[in-house]
């Protein structure tokens, strides 16, 4: 079973005017190699980056990769998806015997984008969807929220609780730029931008880069005393069509099932100690908690209100601050989730440390997709 033997990151910031996207990748890579105690020029067999050309602002991203990771004249490839898909690729390369040590990278230089709304709009079906409105594509998530709230009687208060919890957790995370001390009342009194969605329920964009060093079982044990095992990994796509999809995160349920099966987890809610879940819109956290079988679909609101998912609760969710506290990291979203789980399992999470041995990280591929991936980590 491959293990994470080194992590490094740079960020997370609301913007990074002093560094280029390539330089933040370099910073994260240097830290990850130092953490793992390896030399990338000598020890790494394969490098995987995760990027979407439209987010970068130039084409054929993989061609721009090798130098800043120490990967020149080495096997390198780019996965056009979230970090967790890259981690799955590295996992398969190691399990198949192609590599002993593989490196996975993902980043966000969201502050370089001048037209974020336009970029996301380009992800919408050009025949049936794109031409309907010039509203910001956030509207698409708001429609899903409207559908979800109506179908499962989700309360505004429960969604506000997610905002309060995650922004509150972020205060203890030095790397999270969007921490704030809020009350449910102040969230409910804040303005709507896409009724029934409030501005404060939307994760603001952030910059950052994350690098993981992953190694084969026996090598992992040699390199480090604290390997974090990748016990299960899964990914799943529903459909690209808005007319046939469930609008209730079936992608997360199926990806979770795939990862849980591999990890030998039968009752996730009893076995998982910590979860880092995609909350780029506050309602998504509730939806994803249910999809990952961490709560029943009609009890999730009550559990959220009781503090079941808070830092001191029975099953802490988004102790890092989540995307609401750390920011929307685009394709590095799953990387930040995994990073938090790894730091927690290694007992290096500082003031936000919780007691845990098994954690789950989950990402969604953002608007307008119904795709996502899940990883289970353990010590």
């Amino acid at each position, binding site marked *: 079973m491959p293990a994470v033997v080194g992590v490094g990151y740079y960020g997370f910031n609301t913007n990074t005017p002093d560094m280029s996207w390539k330089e933040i990748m370099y910073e994260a890579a240097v830290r990850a190699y130092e953490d793992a105690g390896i030399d990338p020029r000598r020890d790494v067999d394969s490098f995987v980056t995760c990027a979407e050309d439209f987010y970068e602002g130039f084409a054929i991203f993989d061609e721009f990769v090798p130098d800043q990771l120490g990967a020149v004249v080495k096997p390198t490839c780019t996965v056009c998806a979230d970090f967790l898909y890259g981690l799955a690729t590295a996992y398969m390369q190691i399990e198949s015997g192609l590599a002993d040590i593989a490196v996975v990278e993902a980043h966000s230089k969201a502050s370089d984008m001048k*037209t974020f*709304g336009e970029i996301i709009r380009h992800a919408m079906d050009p*025949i049936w969807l794109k031409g309907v409105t010039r509203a910001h594509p956030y*509207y698409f998530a708001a429609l899903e929220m*409207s559908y979800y709230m109506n179908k499962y009687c989700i309360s505004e208060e429960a969604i506000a609780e997610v905002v309060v919890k995650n922004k509150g957790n972020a205060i203890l995370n030095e790397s999270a730029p969007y921490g704030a001390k809020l009350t449910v009342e102040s969230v409910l009194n804040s303005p709507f931008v896409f*009724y029934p969605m409030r501005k404060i329920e939307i994760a603001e964009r952030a910059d950052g880069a994350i690098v993981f060093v992953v190694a084969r079982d026996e090598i992992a044990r040699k390199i480090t005393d604290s390997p974090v095992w990748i016990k299960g990994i899964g990914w799943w796509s529903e459909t690209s069509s808005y007319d046939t999809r469930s609008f209730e995160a079936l992608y997360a349920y199926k990806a979770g099932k795939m990862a849980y099966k591999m990890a030998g987890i039968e009752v996730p809610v009893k076995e998982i100690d910590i979860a880092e879940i995609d909350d780029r819109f506050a309602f998504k956290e509730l939806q994803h908690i249910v999809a990952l079988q961490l709560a029943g679909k009609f009890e999730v609101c009550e559990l959220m209100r009781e503090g079941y998912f808070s830092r001191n609760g029975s099953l802490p969710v988004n102790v890092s601050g989540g995307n609401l506290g750390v920011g929307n990291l685009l394709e590095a979203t799953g990387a930040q989730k995994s990073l938090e789980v790894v730091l927690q399992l290694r007992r290096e999470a500082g003031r936000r440390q919780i007691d845990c041995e098994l954690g789950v990280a989950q990402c969604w591929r953002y608007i307008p997709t119904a795709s996502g991936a899940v990883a289970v980590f353990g010590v």
Partner: protein
Amino acid sequence: MIDKIVDPEKLRHFPPGGGKIELYWLYTSGKAGNEFFRKLREGKFIAARCKKCGRRYFPPRIFCEFDFSETEFFEISGEGCVEAFTIAKLDLNENPMEEIIALIKLEGTDGRILHLIGEAKDVCIGMKVKPVLKKVDEMTGTISDIKYFKPV
């Protein structure tokens, strides 16, 4: 503590205007799209039925995504029922605007259309709506040939 500067141009100078990608495409609407937008000029709506499982698709398409088999077109009323809606107040560049956008379950199909709601004082989930089309000489063979949906 909540409001942060996310636009780096407010912090220091960058090359004026930044970078630009000027790219243009012709998006082909395909057999199903062509058939739909042609019929729309006659004021008709079409959907597609899977020949194997009978699932009725809207938007129409030439294959069933579950069986991977062929479909056949059939006519529908174009009326439907609001399944979800949002009142959008920010445009693409986060400037103020206001539009009601809805996910509409179309009658006689298992599918949906996502479109604007107009001529409505109030909107609610479950509300019955019907399409308002552009005049034929203003139609361009695109989704905006439907102006919006209004309450029945």
